[in-house]
């Protein structure tokens, strides 16, 4: 199960398991983003490199116009994946 929703003009929420089977669904939403957004991880139980690469691509695209993603509410397991990938240095994780 994986859910992704734009809950406001500047917030996206993720829930469930974000693996390679969800790349298309997630890309569709992230591609709509043109300005800085906060991504809420509170309900996300799992992420793999497939999910990380979508976030990284979005971050790169936004950085070209001076904007960025802020990642909020990660559980310790999800946060570990960011650390193992070295992504904790790239993103603003709150």
């Amino acid at each position: 199960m994986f859910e992704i929703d734009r809950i406001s003009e500047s917030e996206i929420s993720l829930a469930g398991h974000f693996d390679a089977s969800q790349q298309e669904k997630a890309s569709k939403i992230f591609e709509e983003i043109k300005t800085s957004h906060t991504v809420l991880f509170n309900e996300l139980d799992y992420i793999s490199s497939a999910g990380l690469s979508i976030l990284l691509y979005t971050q790169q695209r936004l950085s070209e116009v001076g904007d960025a993603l802020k990642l909020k509410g990660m559980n310790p397991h999800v946060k570990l994946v960011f650390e193992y990938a070295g992504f904790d240095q790239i993103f603003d994780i709150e």
Partner: protein
Amino acid sequence: MIPKKKHLPGLETIKTVVPQKHLERQELEIAGLTDTLASNIHKLTIPSSTRYLEDVREFVTTHATQAGFPDEVVEQLKIAVDEACTNIIKHAYKGKGENIIDLAVILSADKLIVRLRDEGVSFSPSDYKEPNLIEIAKKRRSGGLGVHIMNRLMDRVEYRTRDGVNECCLVKYFPS
């Protein structure tokens, strides 16, 4: 050998058609596990599609938990096997879902091995380069990130190809 299938059965069906004639002793000798009992091997066969990743994670979680690994290590095994399977689906089988992946969790006195087998394009560890995050960001591809995470999480990751079958073994030792 991994059986070829033209029509993909559901996962429940495929679990029951895992070939029983696996040469357990020979397999264990290859893995250097001659003291391991066949009862310490658990197998799962899945079609080569990302929709089965959740089943794979659950399979590994169940057996790693039963083996007594702490939650943190179970989580690491779960992530590593997901990345290994995703790589096979995307790179060995080029995203074609009509192939299959054979998985086994093998337990011995000091370690747990998750073994993945496929018959796709083999992965050469010597060609692997550490991921370049800028390149990944620009191309929107995971570009080696999965292998990097697997290497960080596991005690050992081994690759071999024999008779057209690729084998990837994720090795985790029990905490001393």
